């Protein structure tokens, strides 16, 4: 039996060795994928980004507020302010047109008299408070107050920009305007109280600080690599479903499967041979991805994957994820009659599993119903197990539930394939 399994493994490796397309799918595409995706997504994780987003600023105010907005934006790590196009000042119409055509992602229009009206409004409010507190000359006749209309800072977004970017920009502009208002209120109070020499503390009283988890007394700061390498490695591991299912379908169409059915060898031995071969391939894929993330990434400006102390546990997770993928591939190859059925179905189902498993969108950001569905995806079990090891620094015992689920998935899918095959076998 052992010799039969060994010969099956040798045969599978020889078949793969001579299948250039299959080798590219198995080894080259995952590397290209992980490098490309990590490079693209890196900026969203980076604390400091090299590429700043250009935004248009239309200043109708010409006052202190617009000046502060301009200065704060210029000081920002993320934006460069553009106030002129072709050496001409930007009007609201020009800004709108450029943004809606996608030439710029954002335009900010500061309304006329914003600074003066803000100052007037604050003064009116402060004056009311001061009078109510009896801090002014009570005999003085109060002048009727002018009505000041609310002001609106207009934002134009390129329709193609993502909601997360819009929300982030709106939130930071909102914060900036709040700070300007607060400063203005403080200044007016000082003026009204005639205490212009008093220096109010205008720094934020409440601040926040992110506490980074520490492993071996070293901060483990999540970055694009720590997130992307496990996610896309898992995606690549699951893509093994395509060559594996094609391999099984080919055996059926070439007649070798029929020959094997007449040989004194059980289908279980054939499946064990395939499982061993493709598990080795999964591990090679995994170690290639890790090697690229550790050694190549720093030379192309990406953070290096921090796998120190996690090598064994991540290998275990990769192996069990591989089992789950192999089980799925065996089932698909057994049920499908043609390559035209197995290849597109395999590719599409892996993409669906990745999507619901949280490879693209984190599970916590999904609607409630999708969160439940996500938890039933083997890709999610694998991904969470990788994150547990790499980012949450858990022990082997703590990943046992997730890797057990992955192994159960392999056992169930393989059993269904064996049962299906037995039902189809004649005698």
């Amino acid at each position, binding site marked *: 039996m052992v010799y*039969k399994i060994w*010969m099956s493994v040798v045969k599978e490796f020889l*078949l793969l060795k001579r299948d250039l397309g299959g080798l590219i799918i198995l080894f080259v595409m995952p590397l290209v994928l992980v490098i490309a995706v990590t490079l693209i997504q890196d900026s969203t994780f980076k604390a400091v980004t090299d590429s700043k987003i250009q935004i248009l600023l239309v200043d109708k105010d010409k006052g202190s507020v617009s000046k502060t907005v301009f200065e704060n934006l210029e000081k920002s790590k993320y934006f460069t302010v553009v106030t002129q196009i072709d050496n001409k000042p930007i009007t609201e119409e020009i800004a709108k047109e450029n943004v809606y055509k996608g030439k710029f992602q954002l335009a900010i229009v500061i309304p006329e008299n914003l600074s003066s009206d803000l100052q007037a409004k604050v003064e009116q409010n402060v004056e009311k408070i001061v009078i109510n507190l009896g801090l002014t000359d009570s005999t003085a006749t109060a002048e009727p107050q002018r009505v000041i209309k609310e002001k609106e800072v207009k934002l134009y977004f390129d329709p193609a920009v993502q909601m997360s970017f819009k929300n982030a920009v709106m939130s930071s502009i909102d914060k900036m305007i709040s700070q300007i208002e607060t400063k203005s209120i403080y200044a007016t109070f000082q003026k009204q109280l005639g205490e212009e020499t008093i220096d109010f503390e205008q720094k934020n009283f409440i601040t926040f600080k992110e506490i980074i988890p520490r492993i071996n007394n070293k901060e483990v700061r999540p970055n694009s690599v720590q997130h992307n390498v496990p996610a896309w490695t898992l995606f690549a591991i699951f893509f093994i479903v395509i060559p594996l299912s094609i391999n099984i379908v080919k055996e059926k169409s*070439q*007649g070798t499967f029929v*020959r094997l059915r*007449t040989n*004194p060898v059980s289908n279980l031995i054939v499946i064990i041979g395939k499982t061993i071969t493709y598990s080795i391939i999964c591990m090679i894929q995994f170690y290639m991805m890790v090697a690229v993330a550790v050694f190549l990434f720093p030379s192309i400006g990406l953070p290096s994957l921090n796998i120190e102390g996690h090598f064994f546990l991540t290998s275990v997770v990769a192996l069990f994820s591989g089992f789950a993928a192999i089980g799925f591939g065996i089932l698909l190859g057994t049920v499908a009659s043609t390559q035209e059925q197995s290849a597109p179905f395999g590719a599409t189902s892996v993409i669906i599993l990745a999507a619901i498993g949280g490879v693209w969108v984190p599970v916590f950001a999904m609607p409630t119903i999708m969160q439940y569905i996500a938890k039933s995806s083997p890709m999610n079990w694998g991904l969470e197990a990788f994150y547990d090891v790499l980012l949450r620094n858990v022990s082997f015992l703590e990943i046992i539930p997730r890797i057990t689920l992955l192994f159960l998935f392999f056992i169930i899918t393989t059993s269904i394939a064996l049962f299906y095959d037995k039902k189809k076998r*004649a*005698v």
Partner: protein
Amino acid sequence: MYSLNNVSLNINEGQIFGLLGPNGAGKTTLISMLCGLVKPTSGHFTIDGLDYQHHSSKIKKIIGVVPQEYALYPTLTARENLLYFGSMYGLKGSDLKEKVIEALDLLGLLKFADKQVQTFSGGMKRRVNLIAGILHKPKVLFLDEPTVGVDVHSKTAIIDYLKALNQDGTTIIYTSHHLAEAEDFCTQIAILDQGQIYAQDTPSALIEATKEARNLEDVFISLTGKALRDGL
């Protein structure tokens, strides 16, 4: 409607038994049943006193099967294919390697042993296909159209090899459309049509028993008629 109906056969050890019949007669279905690939809806058969229901793995060890299609891995070499399929019959090590070399040599393929099967001609593929089914020296060999689509030289090599195998004690059960080949090759013949056996005897006895028949082809036409048998 059944592919086979009321078929009763007794094939003795050491025979070369030919199953002949027009397209759709049920030859491949019958041979597939005997090889354990198709389950009969009713009825019973034994091979060397064993039935599939209870002794499936024992039967599979003593039979060899050469399917009609080239049941080989095209990107593996002839040697790699044969080492793999030989190992599935329990052969291993130097014994397996020697048997592969011997069979390749006997069928004139030794110098192509390390070429990928996909580069072979139809005749060469047929010969490798044959070797893959006989490496373990089976007691009973099933052949489904073993010479279809091959040139005269390959056909002669295959038939000669099978005769030698039969001389060594292998019982051969074979289907074919080549009536002249069957007449020369088989010791016993059954003519099958519409799922039933119309006649069964030695080739010479069948010719003698049919009025005005000069060869097996005349017997065949006499029993099955001249109508075309195309069908889906």
